[in-house]
């Protein structure tokens, strides 16, 4: 075995106390030093951590940001999401391919630069975007793509190629990103200033049960999409048995079209960490883990610095605010490029160092989650709201919603609108008002909830953004009259087929069948019966998939088949002879004809 590989591997393992549950960190560290994780390293990791080599292999293979072969000293990951496609992905991709002289997925012959595509990196309001190493580049054009390649070729670090930093903390010395916050409408709660430490002081003045009651009285519900009442979740975890409990902050914001958590982490990280601390106090947990998606790794030094300051100021660590009975600390767990890890059960599995395959419920994580310990998983926004509720009281929060809803919601607006960005609106706001706010008045279709959300047309624009009506984890993608709904749904079907973890059959097979059949329709070889087939398949996936990914993957399809049926019907027709239009005999026999040195043209064969 290569001694350098062995040395680097054992250093990496030792840095994490040879702890197999820190496998993601170990792999990140090896990859940082070697550019990939070679096969030799797998054996060495297994030796150091006492994991079976196949477990290491499994985790390595699962995550898109790990590679077992060299992809290049610097890897350009071009974001290939529907919104990027709307704003020039194809031209930017072509420019990168031309400047690098390699196709997408390739590596330059000198091994210096790799080009990969990646699903939504949380920059839909400033697309097309790419990660170069961990550095984010936004609003790409063919020209800027050429400049980036020229800069890398000249030996610059990706960060040195940023011409102008974004607003707010994006310009912070520890961030220095060209990302823009695009906070278009600061609302009453989240995007306002607050006093650091006030919420924790208020919480610690109450008993844990009173804190839970306050959150319940505020009628706070989970902002990640599912809308589970937060207070109830905490109460379950509080009453669960176990000496060790944990609070997880889900910052694996992978839903295509969502980016509000990125803005919260950039501008209000203290509020998020305070929320975790308060949750820890309420539940009786001493540990918190922020699961940060790898796409947001550029925020990590900044967030680590915030954590260090909070420790120094007595807001984290032992005896918080002098209260000797309460200690709490937070560490950051970096993800590695997996959408499904945004599902709480997959997230916990990932934190344990495994592939992000969701575990079976029950038991629920509040009873038995991370390493069997009671675990609370809350979204970034939910935890930030907790801080505001403890700061200004439950009534002030619950009064904010409209139409019987409680509080506000952050929305990530993108697509065909003149002012894409983050909006804080009271829950219960009609979709139409939101579209007016963002300059999306021309919208013909809107995807509420991102790729796994629902497609609605103008007839439903008066419906309300709320948990009980148009529910969304935050993403709202606007499509103008020039966009084809079936084509958009087909593009997203690729995303789900690629991101399915493969554990359960309905999702693993269903997402592929769905992509295949939608492909027929947008290529013009679909038949009316295909629409019924898709409906049946979608219903089956929803009913039988193991986790939210497979259950939600058909949402955009099913809702668009309902609300935009004519758009599909226009594309399909049946064959009068009963022959399947998607089957092309000439194409199917081409290869065999070539091998046998024969040519078949429309069934008429000639010898070559």
């Amino acid at each position, binding site marked *: 075995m290569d001694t350098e590989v062995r040395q680097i591997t054992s250093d990496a393992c030792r840095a994490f106390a040879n702890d197999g549950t820190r496998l993601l960190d170990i792999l990140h560290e090896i990859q940082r030093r070697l550019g990939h994780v070679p096969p030799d390293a797998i054996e060495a990791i297994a030796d150091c951590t006492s994991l079976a080599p196949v477990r290491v292999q499994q985790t390595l293979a699962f995550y898109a940001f790990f590679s077992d072969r060299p992809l290049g000293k610097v890897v350009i990951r071009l974001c290939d999401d529907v919104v990027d496609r709307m704003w020039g992905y194809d031209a930017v991709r072509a420019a990168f391919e031309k400047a690098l002289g390699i196709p997408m997925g390739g590596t330059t012959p000198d091994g210096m630069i790799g080009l990969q595509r990646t699903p939504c990196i949380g920059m839909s309001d400033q697309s097309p975007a790419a990660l170069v190493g961990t550095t984010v580049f936004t609003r790409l054009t063919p020209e800027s793509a050429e400049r980036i390649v020229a800069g890398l070729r000249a030996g610059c670090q990706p960060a040195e190629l940023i011409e102008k930093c974004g607003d707010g903390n994006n310009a912070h010395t520890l961030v220095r990103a060209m990302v823009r916050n695009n906070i278009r409408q600061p609302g009453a709660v989240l995007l306002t200033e607050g006093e650091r430490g006030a919420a924790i002081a208020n919480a610690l003045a109450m008993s844990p049960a009173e804190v839970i009651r306050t959150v319940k009285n505020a009628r706070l519900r989970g902002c990640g999409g599912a809308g589970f009442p937060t207070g109830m979740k905490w109460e379950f975890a509080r009453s669960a048995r176990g000496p060790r409990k944990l609070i997880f902050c889900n910052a694996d914001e992978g839903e295509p079209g969502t980016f509000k958590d990125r803005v919260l982490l950039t501008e209000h990280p203290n509020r998020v960490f305070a929320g975790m601390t308060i949750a820890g106090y309420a539940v009786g947990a001493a540990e918190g883990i922020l699961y940060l998606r790898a796409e947001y790794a550029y925020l990590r030094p900044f967030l680590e610095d915030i954590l260090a300051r909070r420790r120094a100021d007595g807001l984290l660590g032992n005896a918080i605010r002098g209260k000797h009975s309460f200690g709490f600390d937070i560490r950051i767990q970096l993800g590695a490029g997996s959408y499904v890890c945004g599902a709480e059960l997959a997230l916990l599995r990932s934190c344990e160092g495994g592939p992000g395959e969701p575990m079976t419920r029950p038991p629920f994580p509040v009873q038995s989650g991370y390493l069997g310990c009671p675990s609370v998983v809350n979204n970034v926004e939910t935890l930030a709201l907790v801080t505001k509720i403890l700061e200004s009281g439950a009534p002030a929060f619950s009064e904010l919603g409209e139409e019987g809803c409680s509080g506000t919601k952050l929305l990530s607006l993108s697509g065909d609108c003149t002012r894409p960005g983050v909006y804080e609106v009271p829950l219960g706001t009609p979709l139409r008002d939101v579209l007016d706010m963002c300059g999306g008045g021309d919208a013909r279709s809107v995807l509420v909830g991102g790729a796994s959300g629902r497609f609605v047309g103008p007839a439903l624009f008066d419906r309300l953004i709320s948990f009980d009506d148009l529910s969304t984890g935050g993403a709202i993608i606007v499509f103008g009259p020039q966009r084809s709904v079936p084509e958009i749904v087909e593009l997203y079907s690729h995303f789900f087929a690629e991101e399915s973890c493969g554990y359960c059959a309905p999702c693993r097979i269903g997402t592929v069948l769905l992509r295949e059949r939608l492909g027929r329709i947008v290529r013009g070889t679909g038949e009316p*019966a295909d629409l019924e087939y898709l409906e049946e398949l979608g219903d089956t996936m929803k009913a039988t998939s193991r986790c939210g990914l497979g259950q939600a993957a058909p949402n955009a399809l099913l809702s668009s088949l309902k609300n935009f049926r004519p758009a599909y019907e226009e594309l399909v027709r049946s*064959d009068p*002879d*009963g*022959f*399947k239009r*998607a*089957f092309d*005999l000439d*194409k*199917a*026999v*081409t*290869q*065999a*004809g070539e*091998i*046998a*040195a*024969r040519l*078949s043209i429309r*069934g008429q*064969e000639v*010898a*070559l």
Partner: protein
Amino acid sequence: MSKPKVATCSLAGCFGCHMSFLDIDERILQLVELVDFGPSPINDLKHFTDRCRVGLVEGGCANAENVRVLREFRTHCDILVSMGYCATSGGIPAMRNLVSMEECLREAYMEGPSVHNPTGRVPGDLELPLLLDKVRPCHEVVKIDYHLPGCPPSADAIWAALCALVSDAPIELPYQLIKYD
């Protein structure tokens, strides 16, 4: 009144479904009373002379000839039934979908342990139908009206389905007839 006509064919299958069909034993006498036969391996007729009420298709599509026959069946039959696992899902022949066409033909015609082929080439005679890139179940090539599962479907299942289809009666296949584990 003339009797309804039935046609059958075996595409990429093993003829097992047809053997199972013949297992109707003495009911073959009833069958003669009930239907006339169009093209079928049973009477060795190769071409349709007029429309048939029911076409029973055994096997999936592995080559261009299978496609031609299947399309001819679709054109001439009112009701087309995929009979057996190969027709409904590709079956055993579809296992070649896991191997590349090149590897498949190389093994069959050049490198297989029992192959004697001094030319070292894949046969290119125009009489040989070209292979499709992938073996397909019948419903990927033409519209199929009914699927009769089984490998093979039992004689009782085929009999029950056929009797119902030629007499326009509802098809009743008790669980025991389509249970295979």
